[in-house]
């Protein structure tokens, strides 16, 4: 994981963005999007193996992995939503960014509905 590479790319993209913003603002935003995607792929490649190892360890312990899966999916939703809402903010569309984040929250809520049901049933079983 070469941190300086990622930081270097961010700096170069920022400088290129400023240069291009005077003449053609849209290209500055395209550069921002492209470099965001490249950096994400670079980090994903580095991070994904340890994450799968953790999942295997959890699965080996016999603990129910559905909770970990839901958390893992939530992480995926957060990543995409964050990426899109930041890009919208770059374009100056704050309302749109808010809508994207709200959509992400709805998706996470729908994803965690079964967990909520299980929790409530467990609670009622204790009370009842």
């Amino acid at each position, binding site marked *: 994981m070469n941190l300086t*590479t990622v930081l270097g*790319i961010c700096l*170069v*993209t920022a400088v*290129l963005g400023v*240069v*291009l913003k005077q*003449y*053609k603002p*849209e*290209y*500055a935003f*395209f*550069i921002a*999007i*492209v*470099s965001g*995607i*490249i950096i*994400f*792929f*670079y980090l*994903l490649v580095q991070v*994904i193996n340890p994450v799968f190892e953790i999942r295997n360890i959890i699965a080996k312990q016999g603990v129910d992995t559905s909770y970990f*899966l839901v958390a*893992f*999916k939530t*992480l*995926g*939703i957060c*990543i*995409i939503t964050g*990426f899109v809402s930041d890009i919208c903010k770059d374009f100056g569309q704050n309302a749109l960014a808010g809508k994207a984040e709200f959509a992400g929250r709805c998706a996470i809520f729908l994803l965690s509905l079964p967990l909520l049901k299980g929790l409530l049933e467990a609670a009622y079983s204790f009370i009842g």
Partner: protein
Amino acid sequence: MDVDIIFKVAAIGIIVTVLNQLLVRSGREEQAMLTTLAGLVVVLLMVVNMIGDLFGTVKSVFGL
């Protein structure tokens, strides 16, 4: 870690800007606008393809 895409997009932006100025100064505003539009379409296609790859990867990795 293919960083050259960033420089490709930047190069297209600069070339389109120069061409635009060239055409505008020589009195051909329509061609200038068309050139700008063409550059925009090219870059937009590249970016859309990359965004499609990004979403596909995230979906497959996180099992969404």
